[in-house]
Each structure stands twice: as structure tokens, then as C-alpha cells.
């Protein structure tokens, strides 16, 4: 049934052509395709009434019939809370029709299509949500679009949060809910960036931004207010805590209340946590950003369980922003671990997402994570997952070599950071309500002008906050710049006099300076990082025993322990540097175990299949066994039904 329905507005090109051939204005033969539309819920007379209005509105008449039908159908699906139908319309129908009719123009305005949906205000809000998202992603939003999309978001959240009847009786797919939150923050970010550039604005734009409403629109407080309200209303933090404590379903229902038991609110609450993480990152508050996620954890990307199947984009966004936080906190091992975990997962999940319309976005974010990972490896080289690190080397090998040369690599370092970092924003607008100061900001007086006695302090300037974050990280990069050279020299010795070392280095470097570099190097060889209880134990960390206790005490994402991350260790006895190098022996076991298991599967497969001659069509089962390994190993070897007794004890 659903397949048949979908065909109406989405698929068959010949059907679409029929509709396009219809001469558009006024006299559309009523429902020549009505027999195809077999939805029993739709009443003919209602459609005819709609049809009468169509005749009066040429604007509406110009909308292709297939689009109209889509909207009516979409509306009905939302009214019925029919999740599969909504998902289908949302993920496939909308995008197909966009490609076909609205690749370069707006969708019809909500007011025009209102008669099609009986003026259903809630649906129109949802429709506008899609309408503006399309404008932002495909077209250039003008200032009116920016203000109106803000108003529409407010209406939507107001409806969800301040409904008089308690939780609203609406069901939407998780993907859409995620997109609502994600898009809300994207538009906030986009507005903040637009607002931060007062030059090249028309008088009308300046007037609107300077008005009281202009100052309110997309204000940081209003955005945070929405996200915190969704979190509090859904009691998602309480829910996550209760789950972590292993409470029963009844107890949890009790705790989360009437809103939190509804999937709509619970998911919105959970996505708001991730949204808040992102907003705090954009505003440069890296500690608060991670603190928000304390209860939710970092999910899949940190090898943790997730409370429900969230869209891929949500995981990727979590990992990217959390990783940026750790990077700015100079906790490079944590950053690298989050990036690696997520990239590994994206790599494996890639085959399932090739057709998703979010695929591009996910890939772009993943590319940025590879770039940031290259920075992590430069600042604190650690052993990482082979698959991921191979991609990093493939893409950034050359740049990493350049960054490894110290100061001369600074340009490369900054270039990669600027490409891969989020577009940071400032919380407050330039003074649009004060035209004089604004004019000064756009056209700063020339410093040499004799009229201004203190030219430097009197000139207001607004710089991109990204530069501020870049400076902080670049300073660290520069502080570490002597380390690679020192490392390569120290590796050659077991003990070395500091004066002699100074002699090896460039002229003009005295012993005192070398000693300060050595202290910098010492600091760079340690790092605060989260220790995962289980994984920490087999990480070969010498001090893992002492840290195991600490990890259970606090689950905060900001928690951490000192750990040594350098394989080259040294200590200075007055003037003599003693060096000790740790080496990691080659690991054979993993390879051996994987291949033994693979061989076992092939063997089982061969034994289970009929002899060659007897059935010519028999396939070789071993083929593709690598990918499907997990499923085949569960089913294949159990033939004997025999279980080794002690295998459970281990």
C-alpha cells in the first residue's frame, strides 16, 4: 500500500509528465488521477472544497499537482501520527520534489498551501520549518527569511513546550527531530555570522538589525533558553541517570513524568544536549560544553552504549564538537580517541548511508575530524587505530611532515585548523542600535589622523573569534616547536650533557634555553586524559592500576588522570640528561586470533557445503566471510551443540 502511494508523488516519471502537461491556470480537470489515489481516509468532498479555492488562487494553481498531492498526503500522515509514512514523505518525498521542482526556487509559501491542509497551524509550522531549511541550504536567505525562520522556530518550540494540554499529541521520526534541533542551531550560527559583518549591509538591513526586534532575534539567551527548556521538560538528564543506575521501567517512567515518557520529548531532550554542546563550542566555552554531556556520555564514539538509535549525524556531531573541546583543553589523547572512535564507526557504517541525503554532511564533518586528528598527532603523537591513522597519513602525510619541523610548520598548522574548526561566533552583535559607533567600526579613522590622540585604543575593531582560538592553539604549537629536533637528537643517546646538546643545536642557543625546552618537552610528554575502566587495564599503562579507582569515582567528561604519552623519557641530573626509551613490541596475537577464527569459519563453511560434483550451483561460502563474519560464526559452529564448560568461567 505504501509503495503504491509513494508512486503518486514521488516515483514514476511518466506520471509526473502527465501532470506537467496539464495546462496550468484555472481549468484543471478535477482529479483525473483521483482513481489512483486510493487513500480511504481522504474524503472526496473535502478535496473538492479545496479544489474550489485552488481556482481562486492562481499562486496555488501554479503548484504542480504532484506537489499538492504530496502536501495533502504529508499532512494526513502527520495527523495520523503515522511514523512510517511521515518518514517516507520527509526523507524521500520532500527531497525528490525539491530536486524536481524547487532546486533553485523556494517551495510555495505556507500561506499559499494553507487551504490544502485545512489551515492546520501545526502542520504549517512544520512545513515552514522545512521551507526555511530549504532556503538556507539551497538558496541565499535574505534578512526577512532569517527573521521569519526565527519566528517560526519560536512558534514551534512554544507549541511543544507551552501547550495547555500537556505533552502535544505529535509523533515525528527521530531523524526529523534531530534535524529540527540541528537546523535551529545552524540558523543561529548563520545569523550570528551574518550579523557580525556590518559592512556591505543595506540601509534597510541596518535598520532592521538596529531595531529592538532585531536585537532579540536569534539572541544567545533565546537559543539557550529553548535548549535548556527542552532538556528540563523532558527530564532527559534524570532519565539518563536513572538508566545508568539500572532502575526499572516503572521507576523510570515515574521519574521522567508525562513529558519524558513520550518519545518525541525524550528525543528532543537528548538532541538538545548535543545541540547545547555545539552552541557552547561555537561560543568558545569548552568546559561547559563537555559538562552538558556528562550524563549523556559520548555514545558510540567513545565505545559507550547509546540510549536509543540516534541518527548518524547526531553521533558525528557529538564526536566532532566534543573532540574540538578536548583539543582546546589540550587533552589531545581524549580528542584523538573521540575522533578515532567516530571515524572508525563512520567507516564501517558508510555502506549503509551512501544514499542518505545527509551523507555529504557526515562526510564533510568526517573530513574535518581527520584534519583535526592530524593536529592531535602533531601535538601529541600516540598510537591510534591503524585504519584511521592510515587515512590521516594518506591525506595529511605531507602536512604532518611539515608541521613536524617546528616553527616553519606554523602556516600549515594554522591552515589545517582554520579549515577544520567550527565557525566560531560572538555572542553579541556589533552596535547596530548606535549608528555612530557602527560607522566608526565600518570605516575606522586612519591611525595617523592627528585629531585622535590615542589612535590604537580609540579604534573599535571586531575580529573573528576564530582567530582568538587559533592564537591559543598556535601558541602551544610554537612552544612545542623545539621538541621534534630535541627528540631526534636525544634518541641517539642514553646520557648527554646539556651543554653538549646546546652545541648540537643552532648557534645562539645557550644551555639555559635548552633546559627550558627540556621542561616544555617533559610537559608535552604527559597529558591529562580520561581513563576508561575496562580498556585502561589492557592499555599497558604502567599506572593503570592506580587510576582504575579514579575512573569509577567520577563519570564527568572533564575528569582525567595524568598519563605519560611519550615513548622517549628523560630526566636531568644537574647538567646530565639521562634518556630512556620505551619500545612497543610487535603485536602478533590479534592477527593470529583473527585469522584463526577466519580459518575456522572457512573450514566450517567447507564442511557444511555439499561436495563439488553433487551440486554444480553451490557457491563458495567463504567468499565475503570477512564482512559477514559476525553473523556466520554464531550460526555455523554450533552444529554439535556441545559447549565447553569452562569457557563461561573465563
Amino acid at each position, binding site marked *: 500500500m505504501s509503495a503504491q502511494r509513494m508512486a503518486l508523488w514521488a516515483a514514476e516519471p511518466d506520471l509526473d509528465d502527465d501532470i506537467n502537461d496539464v495546462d496550468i491556470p484555472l481549468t484543471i480537470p478535477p482529479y483525473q488521477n483521483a482513481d489512483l489515489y486510493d487513500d480511504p481516509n481522504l474524503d472526496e468532498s473535502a478535496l473538492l472544497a479545496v479544489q474550489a479555492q485552488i481556482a481562486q488562487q492562481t499562486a496555488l494553481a501554479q503548484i504542480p499537482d504532484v506537489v499538492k498531492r504530496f502536501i495533502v498526503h504529508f499532512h494526513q500522515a502527520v495527523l495520523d501520527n503515522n511514523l512510517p509514512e511521515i518518514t517516507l514523505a520527509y526523507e524521500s518525498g520532500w527531497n525528490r520534489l525539491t530536486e524536481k521542482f524547487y532546486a533553485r526556487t523556494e517551495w510555495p509559501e505556507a500561506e499559499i498551501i494553507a487551504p490544502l491542509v485545512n489551515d492546520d497551524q501545526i502542520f504549517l509550522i512544520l512545513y515552514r520549518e522545512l521551507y526555511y531549511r530549504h532556503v538556507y541550504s539551497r538558496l541565499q536567505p535574505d534578512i526577512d527569511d532569517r527573521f521569519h525562520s526565527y519566528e517560526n522556530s519560536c512558534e514551534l518550540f512554544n507549541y511543544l513546550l507551552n501547550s495547555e494540554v500537556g505533552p502535544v499529541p505529535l509523533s515525528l521520526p527521530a531523524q526529523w527531530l534531530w534535524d529540527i534541533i540541528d537546523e535551529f542551531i545552524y540558523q543561529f550560527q548563520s545569523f550570528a555570522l551574518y550579523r557580525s559583518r556590518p559592512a556591505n549591509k543595506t540601509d534597510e538591513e541596518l535598520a532592521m538589525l538596529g531595531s529592538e526586534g532585531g536585537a532579540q532575534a536569534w539572541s544567545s*539567551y533565546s537559543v539557550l533558553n529553548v535548549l535548556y527548556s527542552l532538556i528540563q521538560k523532558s527530564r532527559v538528564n534524570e532519565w539518563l541517570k536513572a538508566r545508568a543506575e539500572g532502575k526499572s521501567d516503572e521507576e523510570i517512567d515515574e521519574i521522567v513524568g508525562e513529558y519524558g515518557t513520550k518519545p518525541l520529548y525524550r528525543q528532543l531532550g537528548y538532541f538538545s544536549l548535543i545541540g547545547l554542546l555545539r552552541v557552547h563550542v561555537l*561560543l*568558545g*566555552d*569548552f*568546559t561547559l560544553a563537555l559538562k552538558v554531556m556528562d550524563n549523556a556520555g559520548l555514545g558510540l564514539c567513545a565505545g559507550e552504549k547509546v540510549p536509543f538509535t540516534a541518527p548518524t549525524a547526531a553521533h558525528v556531531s557529538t564526536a566532532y564538537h566534543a573532540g574540538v573541546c578536548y583539543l582546546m583543553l589540550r587533552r589531545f589523547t581524549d580528542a584523538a580517541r573521540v575522533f578515532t572512535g567516530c571515524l572508525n564507526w563512520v567507516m564501517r557504517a558508510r555502506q549503509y548511508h551512501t544514499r542518505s541525503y545527509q551523507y555529504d554532511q557526515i562526510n564533510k564533518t568526517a573530513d574535518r575530524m581527520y584534519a583535526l586528528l592530524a593536529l592531535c598527532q602533531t601535538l601529541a603523537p600516540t598510537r591510534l587505530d591503524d585504519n584511521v591513522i592510515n587515512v590521516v597519513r594518506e591525506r595529511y602525510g605531507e602536512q604532518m611532515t611539515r608541521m613536524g619541523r617546528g616553527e616553519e610548520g606554523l602556516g600549515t598548522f594554522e591552515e589545517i585548523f582554520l579549515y577544520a574548526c567550527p565557525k566560531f561566533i*560572538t*555572542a*553579541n552583535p556589533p552596535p547596530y542600535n548606535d549608528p555612530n*559607533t557602527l560607522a566608526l567600526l565600518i570605516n575606522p579613522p586612519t591611525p595617523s589622523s592627528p585629531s585622535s590622540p590615542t589612535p590604537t*585604543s*580609540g*579604534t*573599535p*575593531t*571586531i575580529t573573528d573569534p576564530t582567530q*582568538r*582560538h587559533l592564537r*591559543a592553539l598556535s*601558541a*602551544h604549537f610554537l*612552544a612545542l616547536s623545539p621538541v621534534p629536533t630535541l627528540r631526534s637528537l636525544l634518541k641517539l643517546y642514553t646520557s648527554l650533557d646539556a651543554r653538549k646538546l646546546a652545541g648540537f643545536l643552532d648557534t645562539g642557543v645557550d644551555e639555559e634555553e635548552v633546559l*627550558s625546552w*627540556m*621542561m*616544555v618537552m*617533559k610537559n608535552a610528554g*604527559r597529558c*591529562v586524559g580520561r581513563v576508561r575502566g575496562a580498556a585502561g587495564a*589492557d592499555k599497558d599503562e604502567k*599506572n593503570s592500576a*592506580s587510576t582504575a*579507582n*579514579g575512573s569509577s569515582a*567520577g563519570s564527568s567528561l*572533564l*575528569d*582525567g588522570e*595524568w598519563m605519560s604519552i611519550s615513548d622517549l623519557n*628523560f*630526566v*636531568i*641530573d*644537574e647538567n646530565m640528561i*639521562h634518556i630512556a626509551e*620505551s*619500545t*612497543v*613490541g610487535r603485536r602478533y*596475537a*590479534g592477527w593470529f*586470533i583473527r585469522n*584463526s*577464527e577466519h580459518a*575456522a569459519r572457512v573450514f566450517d563453511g567447507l564442511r557444511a557445503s555439499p561436495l563439488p560434483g553433487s551440486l554444480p550451483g553451490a557457491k563458495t561460502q567463504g567468499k565475503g566471510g570477512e564482512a559477514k563474519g559476525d553473523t556466520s560464526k554464531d550460526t555455523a*559452529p554450533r552444529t*554439535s551443540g556441545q559447549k*565447553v564448560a569452562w*569457557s563461561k568461567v*573465563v
Partner: protein
Amino acid sequence: MTSATSEWLTPSTRTELIENLVSGVDRYNPSNVSILEDYLYHQIRSGEYDCLANLAILKLYQFNSDLYNPDVVVNILLKALTAEPFPDYNLCTSLLDDRLVNMNPDEPDPLPVLLPILTNLYNLLHQCRFPAFWTFYHSDELESLRENYIVECVGFEEAIREVAARAVKATFTRIGLDRLGTYVDLSGPELEMWIEKQGWSLDISTRTVSIPSNPDNEIESVVIRENVKLAQLQKVIAHAAQVK
């Protein structure tokens, strides 16, 4: 056992009132800024330090530019300097949105002048260039910072010496007395007392200071071998048993 960051996350000296502000949504309420500012001045007078509470002040300033008080910001940055090698100083400056310089000539904003100086101090600490730090610290350029702010900040120099002590402790087993003196800007009996307070021992005859061993200044070459656990072999062994 407490983790390396627990005192930073929730200092033992933090009161419940502050804890609620730092962890709750009340941190966004502009009317609470005075509570947090009072707490900062308490830190300044008592030598305590609470980074997250101070970040909450900067957050309020970020959202409400009318609350902005440059003296508070300078004090927060001074406190953050002493947290090195933790990145507190950068976390604070990350929240300092560029603001329009106060046009009022009677009340000039001191921050635009002081911020580059503070950043310079921070970079010297971060690069472990302690003698250069002290030279710059005593220079005329810093007179206004010293006399207007640092003088109020109890234990500031002592806290900077702790930064140096942390770096030295990790890197050295023995260090020359005079060299150590330049790192902590002390000499003679003062230096000897300071060394004693650290629990380090001074050998007067060789003029060297011995630093007790700690996890960072003990080194040994380790060869890390892989460690196969029985559980990893479970499938292989189980399969072998079944095939029989």
C-alpha cells in the same frame, strides 16, 4: 584516591551556593554576577582558586556586556596564570569576546593594554622560560599591573613559584642551587626556606638541590609486550573442542 582534575572540577573550598550556580541554569542569571564576583575576590584574598566559577563570570559578561568589569577580568586572568600547565588561561581568554573600547575618556578600559602583557606572561610560563618571566615581571612595563592588581592578589608570586616547582620536579633529579634561584626568583636564606618547604634537600658543599623521586622524574626503559588473555582465545579454543 582523587583524580588529577577533581580539585579543578570541584575545589574542596567551593561552597554549596557556588556549586549550584556553576552546575545549574542559574549561572545565566545576570543578577547572580555579584555573588560570583564576591567569590572571586574571596579567592584573591585567600589564595584559593576556582576556575569553573570564574569562567561562569566571564560567561555572564559574554552575554551581558553591560555587566562587564575589566578589573574582575584582570583578576580572573591572574588567577588563571597560576594554573599552568593546565590551559585555564586560554579557557578564560576564549570567552573574552572582542568588545568595543569604552569611549569614555574618564574611565578608560585597562584590559586592551593589560591583555597583551598578561598573555606574554602566560607564554613565558608555558614555555618554561622562568628567568625571563621574572625579568619581565619586574620590568617597568608591568608596574601598573603589579601595583593595581597583583598587590591585592594574595600569594600570586608563591603560586607562580609552584608552577616552576611543578616543571622542575618533573624534569630534574638534581638541580644547581643558583639555577633554581633564577627559576623561582629567590636567593639566600629565602631560597633555602623555600626548598625546605618543598621537601627538597640542599647540599651546601656542591650547591645542588636534590629532588625526591616522583612518577615523572623516574625513568626506565620499558619494552611493552603484548599480553594475551584467555578470553581472547575463547572462540579458537571452543571451536577446536567442537571440531573434535
